[in-house]
C-alpha cells in the first residue's frame, strides 16, 4: 500500500496529463529559508516516512528521539500535495522537498529556475515494492502490450514506472493508449475502479490494496468472485521492478551550502532511524514488539484511520511495501561506479521523462548529495554500514522453481518479457561482439528488475534425435521404410505412417519398443541435446558476466540462472531444412517473477 493519497492533490487541472510543471506551480516569489528551528520538513504517505516519524518521535521532535539527540528541532508537515510543497520550498517555508526522484525530475525546471532553489538530492530513503501493473488475460507478457489501453493516475509515481516498463518492452508511449485519471486510489475515478468497470481497458496501475482487490494477490489470478476481476493478474510489480521508484529528499542549494552540518545530521539521523525500524520490524515478525506497535500506532495517528484503518495490516503493510536502502544504499546511489540505478542514471531518466512528456521545457540538472559518507557523522554512528553486497537469490531455489514452471507450463504466466538469440549447430561459445546488444539489454533489465530473475534457457534442435528415433524404429522393425533415397515412405503395421496411427506409434515409443537398437540410442542423443542446451545457456551467462565486467557495470550473478530445455520446446518439431533447424538452436532470455522464498533476506537493497 504505497502513496495512498500522495498525489491526489497534484495536477488539479483536468485534461492533458503532460502539462508544464512551472505552470502548475504558478508565479512564486523565491524567498530565504528564515527559520531553522523548528525546521519545517515535509512528509508524504509512504512507509519510508515511518522511519522519519520514528527518528523524530512524532510530528514534532520529541525529547530522547534520534533527531533530538542530534540537536535537531523538526516540525514534520504533510506534503502529499506536491505542487504546494514546491511552492513552500521556493518561498522558503521549508528547505526540503519530499517526493520520488521522477517527481523531482518533473519539478526540476521549476525549482532550477533560480540558483538558490536548485535541488540537491541529499537522501535516498527507499525503493518501492508496492506498486503494480494489473492486466487482463489478453496480455500474457510485455510483448502483448502494444496497442493496448492503459489507465493510470496522471503525474503520479506510476508515470515513471510505466516509462520503465515501456522501455523494457522496447515500446514507445505512442504504442499504447493512455487514459489519465486524477486520483490514485479510493474513488470511482481511480484507475482500479475504471479498470473494473470498463472491459476495454487492458491494464491499470494500482497500489497494493487495489491490486489485491483486482487479482487476489501478487501471484494470483482474479476469479471474478469477492470483487476480483476475472482473469486479472499482476504483470509487473515494483516487487520485481525494484529500482523504478526511488523516494528521496531534496534540499535547496542555498540552504545546503549554508547548513551542511544540519543536513549531515538530518541524513544520518534518518539512516539511524531506518536501522532501528528494520530491527524492530524483525522483532515484531519473530515474537512481537511493543516498540514497533508504538510506531504503527504513531503512523496511524499521523495519517488518520481513514488511511490506516488497522495497525497489523495497513500500517505494517505500508512499511512492507517499501525497501530501505540505508547507509550502503546511499553510498552506492550517490558515489557508486557502474551502477545503472545510481544518481546519474536516475537523473538522466527523470529529466528525459520530464522533457519528453512536457513537464519541463528544458533539462535542468540536480546535484548529488556530496556528503562525506566516511566522516564520523556516519561511520561510528551508524551500525549497518557494511558495503559488501550478498547475492540476491538462492541458486538452487531459483533453479528448482524455473524447472517446475517449465515442466508445469506455468512459465509464461510468470514471464515479464522474453527474447532470443540464435546460433549455429553445436555452437557453444557466444561472443559479446556478436550478441552485445542483447547482453546490454539483459544487464540493464537485471539491474532495473532487481527482484526478478533472468532465466537463460538453452534450446537445441531435435532433428538428430528424431532421426535416431526413426532409425531405431527401422532397425527394430517397428516401422518400415520403402522408396528410394530422397523419396522415402514410412509405414506402421502395413499402413502408411499418418496421424491415424500416431497414437499407436507414440504408445510404442513410450513402451520402449524403439529402445535397444544396436548402435542407435535416441535417448542418449536427446540427453546430449539437453546437456548441450544447458551448456549453451551457461556459456551465454558467462559471456554476459564478462560483458558486464568489461563495461564496468555491476551485475548480481545470482539473478541470472542458466537452464536447458533440450528438445522439449522446438519452434519447429520437424525442420525441413537447416534454416528451419537453426530456428530451434537458440537461447531464450526470460525475465521472470519468482517466489519470495527464492530470494535471500537483506536489510537493504542497493
Amino acid at each position, binding site marked *: 500500500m504505497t502513496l495512498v493519497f500522495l498525489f491526489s492533490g497534484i495536477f488539479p487541472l483536468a485534461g492533458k496529463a503532460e502539462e508544464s510543471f512551472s505552470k502548475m506551480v504558478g508565479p512564486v516569489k523565491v524567498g530565504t529559508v528564515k527559520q531553522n528551528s523548528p525546521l519545517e520538513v515535509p512528509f508524504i504517505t509512504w512507509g519510508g516516512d515511518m522511519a522519519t516519524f520514528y527518528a523524530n518521535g512524532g510530528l514534532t521532535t520529541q525529547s530522547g528521539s534520534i533527531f533530538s539527540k542530534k540537536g535537531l528541532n523538526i516540525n514534520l508537515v504533510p506534503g502529499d500535495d506536491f505542487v504546494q510543497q514546491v511552492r513552500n520550498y521556493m518561498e522558503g517555508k521549508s528547505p526540503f522537498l519530499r517526493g520520488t526522484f521522477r517527481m523531482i525530475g518533473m519539478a526540476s525546471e521549476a525549482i532550477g529556475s533560480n540558483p538558490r532553489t536548485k535541488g540537491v538530492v541529499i537522501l535516498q530513503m527507499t525503493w518501492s515494492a508496492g506498486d503494480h501493473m494489473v492486466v487482463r488475460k489478453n496480455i500474457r507478457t510485455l510483448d502483448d502490450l502494444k496497442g493496448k489501453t492503459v489507465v493510470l493516475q496522471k503525474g503520479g509515481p506510476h508515470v515513471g514506472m510505466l516509462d520503465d516498463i515501456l522501455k523494457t518492452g522496447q515500446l514507445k508511449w505512442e504504442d499504447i493508449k493512455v487514459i489519465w485519471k486524477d486520483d490514485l486510489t479510493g474513488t470511482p475515478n481511480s484507475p482500479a475502479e475504471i479498470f473494473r468497470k470498463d472491459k476495454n481497458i487492458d491494464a491499470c496501475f494500482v497500489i497494493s490494496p487495489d491490486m489485491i482487490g483486482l487479482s487476489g494477490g501478487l501471484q494470483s489470478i482474479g476469479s471474478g468472485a469477492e470483487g476480483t476481476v476475472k482473469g486479472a493478474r499482476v504483470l509487473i510489480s515494483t516487487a520485481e521492478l525494484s529500482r523504478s521508484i526511488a523516494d528521496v529528499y531534496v534540499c535547496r542549494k542555498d540552504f545546503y551550502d549554508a547548513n551542511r552540518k544540519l543536513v549531515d545530521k538530518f541524513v544520518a539521523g534518518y539512516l539511524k532511524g531506518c536501522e532501528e525500524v528494520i530491527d524492530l520490524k524483525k522483532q515484531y515478525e519473530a515474537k512481537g514488539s511493543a516498540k514497533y506497535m508504538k510506531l504503527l500506532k504513531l503512523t496511524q495517528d499521523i495519517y488518520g484511520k481513514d488511511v490506516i484503518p488497522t495497525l497489523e495490516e495497513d500500517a505494517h503493510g505500508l512499511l512492507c511495501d517499501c525497501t530501505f536502502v540505508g547507509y550502503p544504499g546511499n553510498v552506492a546511489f550517490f558515489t557508486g561506479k557502474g551502477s545503472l540505478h545510481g544518481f546519474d542514471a536516475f537523473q538522466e531518466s527523470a529529466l528525459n521523462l520530464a522533457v519528453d512528456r512536457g513537464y519541463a521545457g528544458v533539462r535542468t540538472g540536480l546535484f548529488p548529495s556530496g556528503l562525506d559518507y566516511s566522516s564520523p557523522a556516519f561511520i561510528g554512528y551508524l551500525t549497518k554500514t557494511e558495503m559488501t553486497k550478498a547475492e540476491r537469490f538462492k541458486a538452487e531455489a531459483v*533453479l528448482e522453481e524455473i*524447472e517446475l514452471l517449465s515442466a508445469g507450463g506455468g512459465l509464461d504466466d510468470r514471464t515479464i518479457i522474453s527474447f532470443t538469440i540464435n546460433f*549455429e*549447430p*553445436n555452437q557453444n561459445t557466444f561472443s559479446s561482439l556478436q550478441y552485445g546488444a542483447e547482453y546490454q539489454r539483459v544487464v540493464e533489465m537485471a539491474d532495473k528488475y532487481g527482484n526478478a530473475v533472468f532465466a537463460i534457457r538453452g534450446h*537445441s*534442435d*531435435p*532433428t*538428430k*534425435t*528424431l*532421426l535416431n528415433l*526413426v532409425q531405431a524404429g527401422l532397425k527394430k522393425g517397428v516401422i518400415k521404410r520403402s*522408396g528410394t*533415397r*530422397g523419396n*522415402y*515412405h*514410412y509405414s506402421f503395421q502395413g499402413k502408411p*505412417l*499418418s*496421424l491415424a496411427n*500416431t*497414437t499407436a*506409434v*507414440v504408445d510404442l*515409443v*513410450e*513402451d*520402449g519398443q*524403439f*529402445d*535397444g537398437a544396436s*548402435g542407435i*540410442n*535416441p*535417448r*542418449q*542423443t*536427446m*540427453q*546430449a541435446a*539437453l*546437456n*548441450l542446451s*544447458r551448456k549453451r*545457456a*551457461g*556459456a551465454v551467462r*558467462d559471456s554476459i558476466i564478462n560483458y558486464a565486467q568489461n563495461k564496468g557495470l555491476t551485475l548480481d550473478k545470482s539473478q541470472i540462472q542458466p537452464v*536447458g530445455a533440450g*528438445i522439449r520446446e*522446438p519452434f519447429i*518439431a*520437424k*525442420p*525441413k531444412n*537447416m534454416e528451419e*533447424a537453426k530456428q530451434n538452436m537458440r537461447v531464450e532470455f526470460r525475465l521472470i517473477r519468482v517466489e519470495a522464498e527464492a530470494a535471500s533476506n537483506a536489510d537493504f537493497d542497493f
Partner: protein
Amino acid sequence: MRRKIILIFNTALILATLLSVLPDKTSGSEYDCNNVVIVLDASGSMKNKMRGTSMKKMDAAKVAIQEVLKQVPVDTHIGLLVFSSSNLNEDWVYPLGPRDDAKLSKAISLPQAGGRTPLGAYIKKGVDRLLAERARQHGYGSYRLLIVTDGEAQDRDLVDRYVPEVVGRGITIDVVGVDMKTTHTLATMVHSYRRADDPASLKKAVAEVFAEVADTGSDIAGEDAFSQLAAIPDETAAAMLSALSISGNDPIGGKAGPGSPSKKTTFRKQSGKSKGIGTIVLLFFIMLIAVIIIWKVIAKR
C-alpha cells in the same frame, strides 16, 4: 593361457574406453556431473578361475575396475555397488559421489566372492540411485550403469523386467562380461555388451554423441537428415519426440516405468483426462437419478 591374459587386459580396456567417452561437464556446475554406478558381481562363481588361466574372475574384475579409474575423468562421480560379497556388510562399497582415489582403490580391493547372483535386484538398486541423482541434477549430466559380471542372474525375471525400463528411462547400460557366455541374457538388451576379445567393437563406443545434425544437414552416413524425415507427418514427429522426452525419476519397478500411466505424454494425457471427465459426468448422472428415485419414493410416502 596367453589369450586369457589378453582377455583380462581387454576387459580393463573396455571399461576404460566406455567410461572415458563420458561427455565434458557442460558448464562446471554441480548439476552437470557425469555419473557412473558400477555394479560388481561378487557371487560365488566369481571365486572360480578364468578358463585357461590361474587368475580368479574376481581378481580380473578388480584389475579391470582399477584400470578404468585411471582413464575416467576426475570429475566423474563414481559409485561402486557390490553384491553377494562374503566379507562386506555394506553393498555400497563406495557410495555415488566425487571420487577419492585412495578410498576408491581400497573399496575395490575389499570384496571377496561369496553367495548368490541377485543381479536384477542390484540393477534396480544401482539405477534407483542414478535416478535419484538425476532428479537432484534436474536431468542434466549423464547416467550410466556398468555391470561387471560373469554369468546368468538367479533373478532373471527381474532382469528381464527391469532392463527395458532402465533403457526407457534414458539410463545407459554397459555390460562387461568376465569370462561370460556370449548367450547371456543381457547381451541382447543393453546399450553395449562387450567381449574382451573384441577390441574392434570398442571404437564404436568412443564415438562422440552429437546432439544436433551438422551444419550440412547430414547424418553420420552422409545422407540428408531432413529428406530422410520428410515423409514423417509433422504431428507424428512432434508426438514421438514428446513421448521420448518424458521419463520420470521415480524408482524403477513401480508405476513410472515405460508404458505406465504416470509416464504418458501430454498427447496421451489429454485422452486420459477426457475419459476421467466422462466418468465423473456418468457418476454424476447416476447419482442424480438415484436422488430423484429416492425423492419420489419419499414423496409417495
